[in-house]
């Protein structure tokens, strides 16, 4: 069995255990709620009979272990219950709002890698000199403010003072795009409407940058730290002695070993962005999971809260498995370890 496959299986095994734990954690959080869930579900004007009925329906009269069993069984059937806020199945709500959030987070992720790694490489190549210091101060600044502060500042500068980008929303209302995937950048292309595609991208820029800024800082700092360590290795000195160009040394010998630890952190940062998307969406009126999440939290809509957290945890697990596989694939020591491995 190839070792990449073995890592995949091991990783999936751990993920199942973690998912069981997450389901317990979410269930526990839902049960520490003060007050009777049946009363909350029915509102203040319910009769005693209605309360008894809904208690049976929600299995609230059964022992806590049985309640957890029902919860897991429902989740496995893809049934996350009905939202009290929208009166629709939670899965329908999430399917509607999740793509907008994912689109934002994925674009922010691309920005994070696209700017974070090159900045880190730049700083490491010029370590101890002015480009290094500039990058260090800049990256420290970007990680020093929550994404909603960056969102507000970017909005003020580049949507109000310099009206380069739209203030809010995902797409100009003049465009009417049939929903296929929920990702507007994909749906507009499916519709063959290139103008709408550009407009969707245009709307994405500011929120994605606001969301990505601290991730860019983290990625750059980490890449720099790892590369500086690698630069002390004898093989770099050897390459220098051979007279290789500094750019080639940076790319081929110093950057590659630093990529792996950086990827791990990028996976974690992606998770943080799923949370921070809540903040950025609030500023830019982005119709994603955030508005729904905050609305259901303020209404103590248990099914919707549990469903939202579960879906986000699941997304995060999937991303981390992908990152782990990527690392396994990039790490030649793991990839080639089949030979002679037990």
């Amino acid at each position, binding site marked *: 069995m190839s070792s990449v496959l073995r890592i995949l299986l091991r990783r999936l095994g751990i993920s199942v255990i973690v998912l069981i734990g997450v389901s317990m954690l979410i269930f526990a959080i839902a049960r520490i709620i*003060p007050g009777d869930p049946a009363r909350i579900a029915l509102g203040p004007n319910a009769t005693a009979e209605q309360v008894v009925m809904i208690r049976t329906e929600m299995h609230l009269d059964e022992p806590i272990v049985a309640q957890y069993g029902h919860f897991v069984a429902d989740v496995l059937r893809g049934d996350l219950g009905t939202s009290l806020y929208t009166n629709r199945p939670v899965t329908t709500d999430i399917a509607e709002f999740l793509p907008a959030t994912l689109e934002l987070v994925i674009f922010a992720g691309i920005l994070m890698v696209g700017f974070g790694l090159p900045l880190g490489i730049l700083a490491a190549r010029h370590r101890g000199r002015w480009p290094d210091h500039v990058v260090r101060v800049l990256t420290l600044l970007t990680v*020093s403010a*929550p994404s909603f502060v960056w969102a507000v500042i970017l*909005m*003020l500068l580049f949507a109000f003072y310099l009206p380069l980008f739209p203030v809010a929303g995902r797409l100009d209302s003049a465009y009417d795009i049939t929903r296929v995937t929920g990702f507007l950048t994909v749906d507009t292309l499916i519709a063959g409407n290139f103008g709408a595609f550009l407009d969707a991208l245009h709307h994405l820029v500011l929120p994605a940058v606001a969301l990505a800024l601290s991730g860019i800082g983290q990625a750059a700092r980490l890449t720099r730290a790892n590369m500086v360590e690698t630069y002390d290795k004898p093989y770099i000195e050897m390459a220098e002695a051979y007279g290789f160009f500094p750019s080639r040394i940076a790319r081929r010998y110093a950057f590659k070993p630093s990529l792996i630890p950086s990827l791990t952190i990028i996976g974690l940062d992606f998770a943080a962005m*799923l949370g921070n998307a809540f903040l950025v969406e609030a500023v830019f009126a982005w119709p994603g999971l955030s508005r729904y999440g*905050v609305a259901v939290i303020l209404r103590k809509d248990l099914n919707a*809260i549990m469903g939202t*957290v579960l879906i*986000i945890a699941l997304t995060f697990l999937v991303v981390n498995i992908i990152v782990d596989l990527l690392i396994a694939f990039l790490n030649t020591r793991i990839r080639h370890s089949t030979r002679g491995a037990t």
Partner: protein
Amino acid sequence: MTRALRIIASNPMSLAGLLLVLLIVAAAIFAPWVAPFPTHNTAVIDFAYANQGPSARNWMGTDLVGRDIFSRILYAYRISLGLGIVVLIIAAPVGTVVGLLAGYLGGWTESVLMRLVDVFLSIPPLVLAIAVLGVLEPTLTNAMIAVTVMWWPWYARLVYSIARSEREEGYVLAAEVIGAPTAHIAFREVLPNCLPAIITKMTLDMGFVIIIASSLSFLGLGVQPPTPDLGSMVAEGARYLPDSWWMTVFPGLAILLAVFGFNLLGDGLREVLGVDE
């Protein structure tokens, strides 16, 4: 201690961090005495000066009911720093003990504890805090609980990775050979070697707790009005952009300044204590 101070002071960036942190801590402690309008941390109304831009009277302008933004920021620092200290004082020891036991004992303890840590780490931090606050009432105490719940696993993971490698060191073996009790080895031999990393992380985390706490109150899930909080001040002002920009920009910059200070200081400490990133 004096040596550490001297090293921090020798680097301009960490010195700047130390000064910033001292300034902000002083601002928080002495807010009632240095704030130009010491009563503006409550539901005071002064419509004569409502919604005014920065001026000699109100350096950072006033909010919709005429309260001085600068005074409110000073008071908000008390909430942010207080919350950060409480969270870290609980989260760091809890995580440290879990990580130490998992890392040093190994075996079943390690599997069970670290899977538990994995569970907490597999929900994005902010989302976990939002979920906890979602079912509790949004108050300052509950915000502290929510942030603590999401924070301890990071210490567990940090200490775990150090303790695991220390387990194989000669001094631990020596202690085991002479029959030292497990608790003694874990807490008196291994723990001191984790302290530099823990202290550095706590300094950096003061900044990150401020970020998370202000994020929660930005969403309306933290400190409730009229108590001033940096996050809710930004949220409130964001509705009046771009005209009343001072209502959002100054509280936002106040967050940036405080967190930047702790980050600079933490970076300096990392160098002084020789901790890897």
